[in-house]
């Protein structure tokens, strides 16, 4: 899961090179023709060479702890590499132009102002690049967005399906396991280590998350899943997670949701299916069942907000269907 190992060295120096220090390089101008070409070549080649060593440099991102997250990561990394190549090429082109054509005399340059073939070329090539990026985007998007049917218990390939209902509220999370009669919740004040509630999920199974909000818009985001989705009032969102590795992954609300947005933390603990079953029975024994879930957290006004009789009408409710 450690994604920091080889990422940033590939991306950032490239950009810093384009942007950083024309002043230092001004001194090198007289020799420009000798160094300019190898420099362009090296800069274009560098990401390719590194890419050869490692097909998908991470650039500091997580490589993904879920199948969907890994697909997303590969798309991100591929696009980033494309971006670095294009960015470095254009950046060096600008830098070359700056250094090569600095004013050295008062002679008037040739007043050319168009070249239709070149203009068509640099319209056409970006169209092709963009078309390829779009193609890969759609392919990845179809993988990431695919969900099993809402009531399925196994996927088409026979993997068991676990259903979890995530309810976001100001300022905390409720994780309900309707198939197992388990429901746990926590807000800014509790949870392990004060870092919010913990959602326990099995690895090797398909987890279908049903995401709803009780009040305002929240953002369900787990960095190592490379995924986020809004919890929208009035909308029920579904997404699937195929977690590949056990571990604890930090999550956090990403959409500003009021005063304690900052502290709306949670975590996901991925365990083996056997450990997951053990955990479930432990929670049932501890009384963390669906029956203890409040009828509607929405009808009690969230803490810290000011409700006056005249505007109490607009109190949000989670009992509406999806759009």
């Amino acid at each position, binding site marked *: 899961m450690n994604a920091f190992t080889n990422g940033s060295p590939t991306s950032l120096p490239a950009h810093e090179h384009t942007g950083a220090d024309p002043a230092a390089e001004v001194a090198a101008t007289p020799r420009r023709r000798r160094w300019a070409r190898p420099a362009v070549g090296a800069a274009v080649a560098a990401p390719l060479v590194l890419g050869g060593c490692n097909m998908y440099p991470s650039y500091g991102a997580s490589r993904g702890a879920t199948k969907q997250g890994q697909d997303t990561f590969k798309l991100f990394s591929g696009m980033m590499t494309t971006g670095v190549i294009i960015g470095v090429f254009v950046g060096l082109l600008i830098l070359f132009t700056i250094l090569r054509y600095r004013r050295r005399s008062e002679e008037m340059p040739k007043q050319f102002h168009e070249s239709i073939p070149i203009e068509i070329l640099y319209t056409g090539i970006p169209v092709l690049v963009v078309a390829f990026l779009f193609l890969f985007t759609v392919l990845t998007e179809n993988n990431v967005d695919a969900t099993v049917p809402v009531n399925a218990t196994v996927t088409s390939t026979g993997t068991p399906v676990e259903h979890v209902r995530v309810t976001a509220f100001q300022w905390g999370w409720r994780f309900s396991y309707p198939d197992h009669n388990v429901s746990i919740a926590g807000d800014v004040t509790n949870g392990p280590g004060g870092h919010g509630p913990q959602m326990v999920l099995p690895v090797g199974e398909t987890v279908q998350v049903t995401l709803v909000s009780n009040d305002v818009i929240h953002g369900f*985001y787990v960095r190592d899943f490379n995924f986020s989705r809004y919890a929208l009032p009035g909308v029920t969102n579904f997404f699937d997670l195929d977690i590949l590795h056990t571990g604890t992954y930090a999550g956090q609300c990403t959409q500003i949701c009021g005063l304690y947005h900052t502290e709306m933390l949670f975590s996901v603990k991925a365990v083996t299916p056997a450990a997951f079953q053990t955990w479930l029975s432990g929670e049932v024994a501890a009384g963390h069942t669906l029956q203890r879930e409040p009828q509607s957290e929405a009808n009690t006004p969230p803490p810290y907000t000011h409700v006056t009789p005249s505007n109490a009408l607009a109190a949000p409710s989670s009992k509406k269907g999806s759009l």
Partner: protein
Amino acid sequence: MTTTIESPELIEPEEPGGPDAHGPGGHGPEDHGPDHAHEHHGPTGILNWITSTDHKVIGKSYMITSLVLFFISGAMALVIRGQLADPTSSLVNFQTYNELFTMHGSLMLYLFAGPFAFGGLANYIVPLQVGAPDMAYPRLNALSYWLYLGGSSMMTFSFVVAGGAASFGWVAYAPLSNSINSPGAGTDMWLLSLGLTGFSAIFTGVNLVATIFYLRAPGMTMFRVPIFSWNMLVTGILILIAFPVLFGAVVMLFCDRHFGTHIYSVSGGGVPVLWQHLFWFFGHPEVYILALPYFGIVTDIIPAFSRKPLFGYRGMVFATLSIAALSTGVWAHHMFTTGVVLLPFFSLLSYLIAVPTGIKFFNWIGTMWGGQLSFQTPMLFSMGFLFAFLMGGVTGVLLASPPVDFMTHDTYFVVAHFHQVLIGTTVFAGFAGFYFWYPKMFGRMLNERLGKLHFWFLFVGFWVTFVPQYLVGLRGMPRRIADYLPTNGWTFLNEMSTVGAMIIGFSFLFFFVNLVTSWRNPVPAGDNPWDGGALEWFTSSPPPHHNFTHLPPIRSERPTWDYNHPEHRKDESHGDKRHREHEQKEPETVGAPS
């Protein structure tokens, strides 16, 4: 007092001689005719300012107001960065922090970036560039400034009302912005301020479009209008598309808050996502309302300092138009993570915007290619813009992909992306324009040395601030949080970002010193200090009350250049032979020296 404007006289460019007579600081014909700068006799003092309908006065007022707001908002950014430098900092509390980032975003986006460009620079420069005596509707222009001043002071002073300023981010997503979650008067003032400044923007948009459509000087055909004015025209049209939608959305939100409607509330059968649709239908064109004027500034500066005509003028116009057209069809790429929008449609249109943007980049490079580049302050800032916008643009392409957006949405990756784009345009290109046109507006130069110091500190600070933000975003730091855990591994990158922000703040000291110096010890600018080509460099600095006493023949998008350098007009064709034939056709209409 109403002034009836007679057309300016024609100047035949026979006597000023060839380019050598002018040298690098080629200038307009200040010998021709009397100085009309003080021709206008109206009220004086503060009443003069209040009653003025002169586009130059209004433009300057707009610029000063928006710059003041820029510095207020920048100071808020420094407080935000101070809070984030330390994981558990308590420099400000949560409520204040939420107010700060909301007002930072709102002031920058609604009240600085747009008004500085289309209210300030465009107001001043567009009539000059197209050869008009004033904007088409001078009184509407004045009204638009007063609405802007009223709206912006209302938003700024919402800090002092009970409950504090708005605290839901500059996008004000429903239902967080409803009367339950944001009950204070500050929110109402925020909304009403958008109403006022929105109308101000619409009036300016109408004015710009009408001015460019109807008040072009004889011979200034649409395809001879300088790109800055073209971009302002397209910006004006985008304003007319986008701002009414914002106004409608704001009115509906206000009704939800106070008059018991349920347009955005689930309990009354409303749809919260509707706010996002309406807001971003305004918001994405708004991004280009903020960007296009600044593209225009750079497009005007680069040819002047390259001593060449713009490369690919028509390509530039079509690129601007396609950016405008596409930008109206991409709003929901801000809503990919809502799960309720059509992903491929918005993704494809967003990707396509990269193509015209790329065309612009290559046209800028093509303009410099083979030129004689001199790096005075405006050109330096333009180069800063190119590099900043390059990285911001490339990361923007990534965000057009829904899966990558799922991965980075609402993290600092996005924050870094849009700051690079917006600072690249509004600050680098904006100050490039300020340094470029300051001599025209005030008739005095800014100090080159201080300008360059300003640039280099800003440039270094910029990269130190925002490159770490990309990384911290990829490490999972969400935006709009006031503190974080020391165990997150975000501390060092945030510290670095804060140091960069301090450098950016420091760089503006050189700017202030520069302004003070130019007022204490003015260095006269002359009419055309940069050897610019567009029409604004033909008149005096500052221009007389109705802009022109004389006009040169307008036969290309840079009539002043053609006048000053008749030997070095645009090479209308590719071959030398055809070029000469063309030259032989021209003289009798243009009156060029034989």
